[in-house]
């Protein structure tokens, strides 16, 4: 790690102010479980690290503090009861030690695990150092996206993001130019030409809390993932699904996939196919993967994703 000054913020407002306008010279740290790995490999060499971990949590009713740890989310009775996908996603993430330190905000804003992104000696669209190294011939891309973007084929790493999108969560953001509340899904909007940063947050903008509103859709939600190694592993693919059934007819449904695209991937075709009809799990599973364009080394993720959609919907329909 390069030496840095350490600024501990009392609240998100102060932290955001300290970060804004400094570009890569200042970074925010919550639990530090992702940030420290990037600092150690010198992918980031900020002059200042702004510590959020002692900021006032200030989360109100129906809110999940951005500083809540994954372990706290997984164990929270209200979340378990009303947003089972979120609790499950948190429980399945990482290791017990990481879940005790890693936070909701950090999990949503963590950087991709693409090994080319994480090694400064390769060019990388996300790092702004050139073209994606994972796409061309000869690249090792077995864990990458099957719904790749033209300019980046990394796989989205977060467990929480698909789950939060599936239950319709919003994120409350703080910035000196004005606070705002975004749909969790908007956070990852790629835009037409791709985006370097992992989220659409403005420079210095911070997530203060996640806003959760109970709904029948959210209550009937789940999260499933598939790991190569069971002990801990980033998921080969994950599916967060939420289903609102009315006498066997699908009133509303959300199917959001992790690990298969540079951002959480909304299986819109499958959702559209299901909405207003009798639940047809097989058709949904087929539709979810229909548009997949796997890379040289990850075609196997396609049937896995289909199976996860099948599992999630089957669980929700019983």
């Amino acid at each position, binding site marked *: 790690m390069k030496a840095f000054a350490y600024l501990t913020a009392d609240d998100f407002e102060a932290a955001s102010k300290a970060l804004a306008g400094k570009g890569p010279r200042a970074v925010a740290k919550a639990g530090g479980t992702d940030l420290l790995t990037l600092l150690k490999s010198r992918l980031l060499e900020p002059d200042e690290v702004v510590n959020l971990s002692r900021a006032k949590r200030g989360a109100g009713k129906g809110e999940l503090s951005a500083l809540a740890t994954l372990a706290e989310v997984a164990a929270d009775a209200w979340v378990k009861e009303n947003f089972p996908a979120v609790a499950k996603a948190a429980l399945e993430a990482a290791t017990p030690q990481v879940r005790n330190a890693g936070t909701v905000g950090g999990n949503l804003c963590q950087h991709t695990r693409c*090994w080319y992104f994480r090694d400064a000696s390769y060019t990388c669209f996300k790092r702004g150092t050139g073209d994606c190294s994972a796409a061309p011939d000869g690249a090792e891309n077995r864990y990458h996206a099957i719904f790749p973007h033209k300019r980046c084929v990394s796989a989205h790493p977060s467990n929480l993001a698909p789950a939060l999108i599936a239950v319709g969560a919003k994120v409350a953001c703080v910035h000196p130019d004005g606070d705002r509340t975004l749909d969790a899904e908007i956070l990852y909007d790629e835009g037409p030409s791709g985006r370097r940063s992992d989220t659409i947050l403005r420079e210095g903008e911070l997530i203060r809390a996640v806003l959760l509103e109970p709904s029948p859709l959210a209550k009937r939600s789940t999260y499933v993932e598939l790991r190569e*190694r*069971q002990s801990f592993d980033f998921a080969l693919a994950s599916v967060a699904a939420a289903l609102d059934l009315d006498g066997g007819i699908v009133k509303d449904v959300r199917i959001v996939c992790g690990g298969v695209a540079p951002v959480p991937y909304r299986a819109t075709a499958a959702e559209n196919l299901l909405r207003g009809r009798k639940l047809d799990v097989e058709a949904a599973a087929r539709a979810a993967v229909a548009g997949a364009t796997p890379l040289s080394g990850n075609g196997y993720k396609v*049937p896995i994703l289909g199976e996860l959609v099948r599992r999630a919907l089957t669980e929700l329909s019983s």
Partner: protein
Amino acid sequence: MSELRLGFPDNERKADVEIPPGTPPPWDLSTDHKVVGREHTRLDAVAKVTGRAKYSYDIRFKDLIYAKFLRSPHAHAKVKRVDLANAKAMKGVLYTESYEGETVRYAGQHVAGVAAESEEILDDALRAIVVEYDVLPCVTTVEEASNEGAPGVIEGRGNLEAGREQGNLKRVQDAHDEADIVVDAEYRTQVQTHSCLETHGSVCRWDGGKLTVWSSTQSTFAVRDGMARTFGIPQSDVTVITEHMGGGFGSKFGPDAWDQFCARAARATQRPCRAMLDRREEHLAGNRPDSIQKCRFSVKKDGTLMGAEVRSQGTSGNATGGANVYNPGIYRFRAAYSKQDTVLTHASSGRAFRAPGHPQGVFALEGMIDELAEAIGMDPLELRRKNDPNPVRLKEYEIGAKEIGWHRRKKSGSDAGPVKRGLGMASARWGHNARPGAEVRCTIGRDGSVILANGSQDIGTGTRTVIGLVGAEELGLGLDDVEVRLGNTNDPYGHGSGGSVTTPSITPPTRAAAFEAKRELLRHVAAAVGGDPDAMDLKDGKVTGAPRELTFKQACGMLAVDQVTALGRMEQKPGGGGHLYPPFTGEVAGVQFAEVEVDTRTGVVRVVKVVAVQDCGLVIDPLTARSQIHGGVIQGISYALFEERILDRRTGDQVNADFLGYKIAGALDMPEIVSIPFSVSQGMTTTGVSSLGEPPTVPTSGAIGNAVANALGVRIRSLPITPAKVLAALGGVR
């Protein structure tokens, strides 16, 4: 003449032997052990569970400095220029080295080195070094390296190192002709890295012209001798200390480049210096080479194995040789032939890795045996029984088959699924590797204290405890009554821990030392109380055969000298050398059975149960023996399902040189494991103890591979068996 009872209760063989005077009578089936063969906790267990055990990584001095190499991101390059000016200008940078002008042959080869006051300064200094390379084209796979016109790895040398050729091809072809069925198949295994949790490295300190090295090594004496050569100083001026050691698995027989660099930095600065590799560097510090094994095997319908023909290639990176595989082997073939090539690539070099060549060879060999069984419609266990010459393994088949419930094995692919179960098995064969030359010193003090000392190391296999148990047995004492000193080259010589030589080679000298010290003690006792010292012995903390009751302590109190000391060696046959006693089989036999569950929708393989029956000669301690077998099985599972060094083919860089992308089995991946140490009176030495370190990891991947094939009805001939490969084999991948 005495009678030696060899083998195991169901299969005993007697041999008439001459016991040389002054040597302890050899242990055999008649020996009634008091300590040996019973469960004991390790002597260093408390130190390890409390964090008090000091590993080389943990050695600290007030004025300690830190050293590290800067490494090339390119696999093949000329180091044009190394600019150290910025690094040298930093406060706290104390020493630098440059490798300007050298040729880089793998991504991760060192090009510069720095030693500094703190790890933070060191980190800054390495970042500040500017290196210019002439980047050259690289080859990273066996196929690429074998292409016409491929860039050479070592100047003036082709990339193909035509290796060992064994057997008579003509005879094998005749056997194929005579056989009913001939099966051709190609098997592949991956590169596996050692992933020792304590990385390689050392702490070096000079006191005047004398060097002390705290080294994470499997061979304290090799490090001593290597350092003495490096610095042109006598061995007597080098002391190597390895009190505890966090795993080696074959990769730590140094001194390595970084150890020598560390010692140079320590000498230049006259300060103790630490150079321990980081995780990325550890992945590059050695590996189990990969293999492509083209096999043609044949069999008669009655299950007689006929011809076995293997052509293998593998890469040991930029090291010449070392990619041999153990295939064919184990079973009786009418005729066998193998040709084994090592292909040079621009990758970090292979090193010995727990049973070098065996897991990769046995994965293919045992797969082929199952393919033959399948082809003639014979139970694979039956086919093995028919062709296995080893009496120990024949018994182990029985024990293992019963424990796993082999009768439940269905016809391959017949399980209904979608989660399909399967059973598989595989075997291991290993040498009885007792090597002469190691020495143990036994000292008995007048207060009854006993010290057993040897300068080699305990790499986690329990050597310290084994020495204690064997010494205690000989002296009629308990494990707690003896003190074992290990891991300092100022004590008597001990071998490097490789080839599973340690326990078979260290136990006879331990016995000899304790035996001789005991005889000396008893002579003093006889001088004090009368009686015939040769009729006396030590049992249960007492002297037997003396004119009056004496405890061990009282006996020691009668010493006319301060202490008695004896140096024990492994006795050899007088004259020509060789082992004192005949062997039972002269080899070590093991069998493993695996039960797996394969989810055909996701391709995930879950190992449900593994049964490992493993011979290791006389079992010294069933508890630590079980640990050793468990450990071998677990590494085998990890090799079978998860581990794989992944190189980017364009750069030769390992993209998963960490513990996230390089996956080793964890707690949630554990099946039920039943480890059964199988005690055999093996003869040969005074203890009849045999090798156990490596063999238990050999058959696991073969057994799992066969179980997966049994579950699916489709065979995956490539390790690791990942969801990607399972789904591809099932035809589910577009």
